[in-house]
């Protein structure tokens, strides 16, 4: 990477193990402030695990993570998670209506979210206000994913972690969500880390891209490197992925 930037998140020699299995190994690198970094790699590569490390849902077995140059362990977990928001891969919903779900981040802080605010978050993700009182359990996969994104946006985090947030969406909705995230990135200088299986998305949305495989980061750089990969492993992945 040739731009000079401030790292929003910096990983230093990160290992992550579960029951003796090495899920992540020797990960070092930065996510620059105000940029979109896309994260690609085969299923099981450790992308979600890496994302969960960033907002402290899990802690590394070894190594140090810094958020805006502060060791992650010195930040209060509640503040950390509001500052570094995540949209989880499974887009889980709590029991209740869409409104219940959208107001959850505020409710956890003892504040309420007005219906007007909730509607504006819904519209941001391309859902109209008629969804507000719908039972969240009745949403389709794509609607659920959009409510999950909207809910993550409620905390107005400075860093956003997005885990395959468009995997269940149709072409048009994908474009809408992409435009929304790009807008948030530009307008509020929000740092974004976006996991995707869609390599075209990784290239055209990302400023930077990390390629992960088997718990390791095998290549990083400006996203365009995916078009003409030099490393053999990345080339194989890209060819398989585009096919």
């Amino acid at each position, binding site marked *: 990477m040739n731009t000079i930037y401030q790292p929003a998140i910096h990983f230093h020699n990160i290992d992550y193990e579960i029951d003796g299995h090495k899920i992540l190994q020797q990960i070092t690198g930065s996510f620059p402030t105000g940029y979109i970094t896309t994260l690609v790699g085969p299923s099981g590569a450790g992308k979600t695990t890496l994302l969960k490390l960033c907002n*402290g*849902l899990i802690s590394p077995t070894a190594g140090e993570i810094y958020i805006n140059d502060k060791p992650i*362990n010195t930040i209060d977990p509640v503040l950390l998670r509001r500052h570094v928001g995540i949209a989880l891969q499974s887009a889980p919903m*709590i029991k209740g209506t869409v409104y219940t779900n959208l107001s959850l*981040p505020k409710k*956890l802080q003892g504040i309420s979210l007005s219906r007007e605010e909730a509607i504006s978050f819904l519209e941001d993700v391309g859902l109209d206000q008629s969804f507000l009182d719908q039972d969240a359990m009745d949403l389709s996969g794509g609607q659920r994913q959009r409510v999950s994104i909207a809910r993550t946006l409620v905390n107005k985090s400075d860093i956003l972690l997005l885990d395959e947030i468009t995997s269940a969406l149709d072409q048009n909705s994908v474009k809408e969500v992409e435009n929304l995230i790009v807008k948030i990135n530009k307008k509020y200088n929000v740092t974004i880390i976006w996991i995707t299986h869609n390599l075209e998305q990784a290239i055209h949305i990302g400023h930077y891209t990390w390629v992960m495989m088997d718990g390791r980061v095998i290549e990083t750089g400006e996203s365009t490197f995916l078009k003409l990969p030099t490393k053999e492993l990345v080339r194989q992945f890209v060819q398989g992925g585009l096919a």
Partner: protein
Amino acid sequence: MSFTTLSLTLLFVFIPLILSKTLHLGLEKDTIIATLRSIIQLLAVGYILKFIFESDSLLYILLMIVLMVVAATLNARKKGANIKGITWKVAITLITVEIIVQSILLGFEIVPATAQYIIPISGMAIGNSMVLAILFLNRFQGELDSHKDETELILSLGGTPKQAIHHQLITAIKASMIPTIESQKTIGLVQLPGMMSGQIIAGADPVQAVQFQLMVLFMLLTSAAVSSSILGFLSYPTLFNDRMQMLKEKF
């Protein structure tokens, strides 16, 4: 009842034994063990109680209560192997229930402070509390397993462990209390409660027996509510670490 008449009641044991044999239920061994154990355990308790009643010493009463708490704790803790320090948590729960129950009953002089009252009532309070603890722990674990994603979601949005587990905790507390409440709604309609029946058979005035039964029922409501709430609030913090992360092995 004499022991000779009592031995006639063993006919009630032979009937299931014969059925088990002819229908190949394979329950003969368990039936015999259950019979022998109940004879030995209850007779032992009977003689111990007789001894304690006659001595009427506070020390023996306390000893008896301690014994009940220990036995109930050992039984209930098996269901909470997942929870750190479960033995102490269950013991504290049972002791709290016992203290509340006896403070009200003895404090307001509702029953006389003698072994004859204290011990059976303690037995019911502690026994019920143990059952509630088991019901609660079972349900709580089930709720944790089935709502793992929601727990993680709430943590991920900046919720505290207490917020993340609140729904599961409340559901489990509620679910464990419902049988106690429900059974009281129909009580007396179909089946007379065991204690009341016992008193009536032993010759007590039915209205007097009903009064005692009501006292016990009300006490069991307290026992149920207090048991699952205390155990719930003692248990949930052990499921997270100090970075507010879910401990993987607990969910």
